[in-house]
């Protein structure tokens, strides 16, 4: 398959849109990180009029706690998760675009016909294309992760007085989640969830692009699927009882959204409030079962890529 990978390289190296996505996503992530870091801990608490001394102390403690809390996401290794969280949507859209463009445009331009004549082993050709897609997504994710790891060394955010975090935030009416220590392993769990999201988006849009033979149609059809699944899941979750309550969790979109939240909880970044698990009718699944469901989806979608192309008439 090496010659097919080489052939794809000749094609991909001249695709400026591909490189804008692969290099642009880490750049966007870095931009979001830098602006976040620059504004972290800059909160000013305005006091007007005479304030009793004990209340001034409380305000000072609150300001110190806020500053320490807002600086946390920019400390290593939590900075990795911060960078990753800032790029999740971009990476999902980027992976979807790459799949739609690199697969669908072959049909729009009619070049799939030349490909079929020069490489009648369609599955091998698709295998090479899949390898490149995964590689491009990995390059973007690795770049985002690396930036997240080195960013604290370059962009320093003053953590203030870390002991301020130990105060009970409820004593001055704050809603801060008590910060849990984030390990490198925890940060990598978040990176893994991002990889799952990107690959699933790529697989879904890629299948639609292959089936409907155009990049635009691929994105449109996949988008419609996501919306329809969301609506159907919400309906089932609000009405279903018994085993049917598990059904929405089997959907790709719902499961991915659950996975991202689960990863953040596992990494200690979130308490889980506001995630799908808090929706009415949601029944929690063990994380391993959730990951297995995503794996089944990925295998199914990618398997269908090969079935669709193998059986396709090349009428372009």
């Amino acid at each position, binding site marked *: 398959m090496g010659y097919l990978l080489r052939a794809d390289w000749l094609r991909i190296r001249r695709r*400026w849109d591909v490189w804008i996505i692969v290099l642009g996503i880490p750049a966007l992530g870095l931009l979001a990180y830098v602006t976040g870091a620059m504004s972290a801990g800059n909160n000013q608490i305005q006091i007007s009029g005479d304030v009793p001394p004990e209340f001034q102390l409380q305000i000072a403690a609150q300001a110190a706690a806020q500053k320490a809390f807002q600086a946390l996401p920019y400390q290593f290794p939590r900075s990795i998760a911060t960078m990753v969280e800032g790029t999740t949507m971009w990476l999902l859209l980027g992976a979807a675009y790459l799949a739609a463009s690199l697969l669908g445009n072959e049909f729009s331009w009619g070049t799939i016909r030349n490909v079929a004549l020069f490489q009648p082993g369609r599955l091998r050709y698709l295998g090479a294309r899949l390898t490149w897609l995964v590689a491009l997504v990995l390059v973007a994710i690795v770049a985002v992760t690396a930036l997240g790891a080195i960013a604290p060394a370059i962009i320093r955010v003053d953590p203030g007085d870390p002991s301020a975090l130990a105060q009970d935030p409820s004593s001055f009416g704050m809603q801060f989640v008590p910060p849990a220590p984030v390990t490198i392993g925890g940060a990598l769990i978040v990176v893994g969830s991002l990889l799952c999201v990107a690959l699933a988006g790529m697989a879904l849009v890629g299948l639609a692009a292959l089936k409907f033979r155009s990049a635009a149609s691929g994105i449109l059809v996949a988008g419609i699927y996501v919306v329809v699944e969301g609506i159907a899941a919400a309906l089932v979750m609000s009405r279903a009882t018994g085993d049917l309550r598990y059904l929405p969790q089997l959907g790709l979109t719902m499961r991915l959204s659950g996975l991202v939240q689960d990863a953040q909880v596992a990494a200690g970044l979130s308490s889980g409030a506001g995630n799908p698990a808090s929706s009415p009718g949601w029944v929690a699944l063990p994380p391993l079962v959730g990951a297995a469901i995503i794996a089944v989806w990925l295998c199914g979608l990618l398997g269908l890529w090969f079935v669709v192309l193998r059986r396709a008439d090349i*009428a372009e």
Partner: protein
Amino acid sequence: MTAAIEARGLVRHFGSVPAVDGIDLYVPRGSVYGFLGPNGSGKTTTIRLLLGLLRPDRGSISLLGGSPHDASCLAQVGAIVERPAFYPYLSAHENLRLFATMARMPSATGAAAADRALGVVGLSSVARRKVDGFSTGMKQRLAMALALLRDPTLVILDEPTNGLDPGGVVEVRGVIGELARSGRTVFLSTHVLTEVEQLCDRVAVLQRGRLVAEGLTRELLERGQRLAITFDTEEEAGGAARVLSEAGFALEAEDEGETTLLVGGDRLGSSAVCRLLAGQGLYPAELVVRRASLESVFLELTEGV
């Protein structure tokens, strides 16, 4: 030796519409085979079936003795199918190199093959220009270069002169003639009947997915030729008409006056006609063989179906 192309009972439907309906083809190696038919007759669908781009509902196909889904078999085939298709953001040379790489050619060999193919079609001077800026004619030439990239034994060309200016048409015809002279098999689908007349030694005519004629181009043209016999008087012409009819010759209506008879059909032969008429004391004033053009034969075959 196996045929270059052999297809038996080829059937392909699109929905309930039969695009190709039971075609048998036998293209001998080394021949230049013309494939004619009006728009929508199934020519391009047949070519797609032959190249393995479409799967037939029924029937079998053999290309150079192998299957069109076999890489080693397709490696000996070059093809232009309908409109040219290239990566617009790559140059002409990069497009060819890419497909050379896909065909497992080593890098240097692929680059040399691309240079050679571009030279054959006269695109060397624009080899490094992006295809996006190419005219229709230049893209058509590039498609020809792609077809020749692997130095194929069998070349299947679907409307290869589409979009070319007169100079380009002459050049491409020259390339096809060169391919034929070098012993390659050329399967040429075209609307340009003069092209077929000039280049092809065999021809098949397709109408509504079915072959309505197939054979040597010379024989097909002979099918359309007529013998025009002119007499000095209408009485002589009337007498000759009776004699020829009784002898089984097919007389056709003509509009050039009542002193001229047109004899068609397979039993043409001016010497036999002369002998028959002379035996009855009838001597034509003029006897001319009117050769048919492929255009008239084509129209006769396709309009009658």
